[in-house]
């Protein structure tokens, strides 16, 4: 599923003043890409991801996810789009604190109306895949930052969406854990052909992304393709098995 953005603008109202967050971005993300949007704070990275995910509306411009023109979808249709086709990963994990790891992952399936038995099976399997098989009944506060973010990744992929939007997923993690998480996401990208789009100002993410779009003051400054083969897949697998943090 391709994401295409044309001449996108987004302004915010701040104390009665109109503040531009995105100023005319054109961008196309193809299916299966593993791309990062980088830039300093306030450059419009999160705003762009929110607009792509239908959480926010653009002030002007066109945004299409697959065949859907997001400007033409109502709130209910946007919710359905997120529920079935887009997964989110947040900088602060955004797990629901009163739910266990398994329940957090199951939540999406619960909203999709999947039966309990299947919910549990699928969620457990995904948690095992991200290396958290032993922690499924733990509450978020009982997990480390890296583990929590892996739960968030599991929640994002459990419904097998076509796109995952990850807003600074490694910002709260140390270098090593961040790297492992990136390896995990790349692995998922590789195996399941899920489109990953990160927002980041983490150098490591920028280096590992196959495509890097650099934003400054709400406009695209550069758009670099790095091609395949940057990741050493075997190494990633070993590392992720060795350490689950």
């Amino acid at each position, binding site marked *: 599923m391709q994401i295409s953005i044309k001449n996108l603008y987004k302004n915010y109202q701040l104390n009665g003043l109109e503040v531009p967050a995105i100023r005319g971005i054109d961008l196309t993300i193809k299916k299966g890409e593993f791309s990062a949007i980088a830039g300093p704070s306030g450059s419009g990275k999160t705003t762009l991801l929110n607009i792509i995910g239908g959480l926010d509306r653009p002030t002007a411009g066109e945004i299409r996810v697959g065949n859907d023109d997001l400007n033409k979808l109502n709130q209910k249709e946007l919710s359905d789009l997120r*529920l079935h086709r887009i997964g989110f990963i947040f900088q602060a994990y955004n797990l629901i604190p009163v739910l266990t790891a398994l329940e957090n992952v199951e939540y999406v399936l619960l909203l*999709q109306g999947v039966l309990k038995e299947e919910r549990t099976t699928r969620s457990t399997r995904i948690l095992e895949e991200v290396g958290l098989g032993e922690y499924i009944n733990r509450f978020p506060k009982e997990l480390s930052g890296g583990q929590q973010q892996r739960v968030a990744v599991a929640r994002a992929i459990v419904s097998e969406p076509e796109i995952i939007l990850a807003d600074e997923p490694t910002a709260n993690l140390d270098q090593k854990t961040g790297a492992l998480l990136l390896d995990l996401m790349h692995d998922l990208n590789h195996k399941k052909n899920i489109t990953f789009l990160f927002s980041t100002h983490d150098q490591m993410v920028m280096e590992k992304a196959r495509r890097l779009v650099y934003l400054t003051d709400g406009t695209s400054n550069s758009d670099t393709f790095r091609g395949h083969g940057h990741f050493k897949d075997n190494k990633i697998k070993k590392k992720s098995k060795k350490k689950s943090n």
Partner: protein
Amino acid sequence: MKFLLTISLRNLLRQKRRNIFLGSAMAFGVMILITANSFSHGVSDIMFNKLIVYMTGHVGITFNEGTGRRIPIFRDKERILKVIQNNIKKDEIADVDEAIGMFCRAIGNGKADNVVVVGIDMSKQVSEELEKEYMESFNVVEGSYDDLARDDIENPVLLSRQKAESLNVKRNDVIRIRFQNVYGQDMAARAVVVGLMANDNLFMQGVLFVELKNIKKMMGYRPQECGNIQIILKNPVRDAVKTADRLHEALNPGPAFIAGTVRGAAKAGVTILPFMADNDSKRIMRESFKLASGRLDDVLAKDGVMIGRRLAGLIGAYPGSKISISFKPRFADKDASFTCKVNGIFTGPPDEEEKLIYMHESLFYKYFYSNLPDIIKDKDKAYIPPDDSPFSKALGTEWVLLDRTATTDDATKKEAQIAKKKIKAMTMDVNTMYETASDVLKLEGVLNLVTLIAVLILFFIIVLGVINTLRMSIRERTREIGTIRAIGMQKRDVRSIFILETVSLTFFASICGVVLAFIVMELLSLIKFNVVDNPMGILLLNQRLHFLPTISGIIFNILFIILIAAATAYFPSRRAAAMSAADALRHYE
């Protein structure tokens, strides 16, 4: 819906501390509400089923044969009982009692006091449950309630310990009582104390209870006569007014007449009719009467009668002559008779001239009530002028049925008007507890007000608690709302989750509140209050608070509280749902 409920209940269970606080406040409120409601019901129960039952009944039929002094007597008990039987369904009626009470001067051992003597019908078969209730109400602590029915003791009497003290009597002592009987004669009687009551009901503390048949005998009632009637209904609030209305309609009186034989020089069959002495009736008589002999003023006097011209010729009567009238009474084998003076001779249609005697109502009712004439339906034996006769509106009826009234105020006004009219016939009034026991019912109103205040307090606890908790919750969970919106939850589902959480919490808190209320009521019922001489004693049952929770009341209360909680939760929940997901995700505590 199921997944929303699952999510709501799970959230509720996981956010324990805050929910326990709010839930406890709600449970406390529900406990107050249920307890207050049950107390109010309990007091209503005491009033409707314990006090009013003994005081006035739920529906009453009262009689008054006296003009200056109240004489509560109806001369044909069977007739009134038949009317009751025919007009109240069996499943609506609990009991019918004769209510006979008399104000007396009681003289004990060196001390005297004013008392009310009230009759209890000991001959009646009552259910075990009712008997137990009687025993609880009378609470005889010395002697025995059953001794009231003993024939070997002269007028056995039961009285409260307070009254025994004021009369300086104890069990087996003799009390002399002075009173007036139904004929207005001063009488005295002896009564033997067979039991003392420890009673917290103020209305029972000044009363001397005797067997109904004994008080009737003392008061001069004959077996076929009865005092006022009290009707106890199974559902007084629902049925009292409509029952009274029905009885009122059925008790419409027929014409009053005495059919007998008149003797002068010869004898003849005759019907004696009363003409009323109020101004309207007198005017009718003056305008329509044609006198053959005598003066109308003499005719309208109380001391004589007016006979038809043909009848006068038949028996050889003339103004000033005396005639003797005899008739068959309803309840005696021997004919009753009286003599009266002829004041005038009237002319009119042949039948009326031959068969009628008109008598002033004062004179007529004296003879009529003291020996109720036999019921005669044969037109040959009793001649009643047709309804369109000019006099018919001036003629008296068997009794005067007073209009129905709804409140004590209306009833008081009605009594004052009746007193002014100086009605000579017996008056009959059909009333309900709303007229006769309104003061007691007012007390119930006050208690309902207290309950209402409890409800309002509860209302504020819930409204403030729910609003505050939801505001806090929504603030604390803003990012969670953003997250669940981001992963695809619909706006209305977010709103439903918050409402469902509140409703579920309210429901569980209500259940706890009900359990708590039952514990509190049980504990409060254990406390014994000693409230002798305190009017609030009437709110107690056997010196204890009386709570009467009802299933319908509890269900109503729970639904009411849930409704308030849901309505209160709606707006904050709507706000939470309307929040922009992107804004919610940006929110930091």
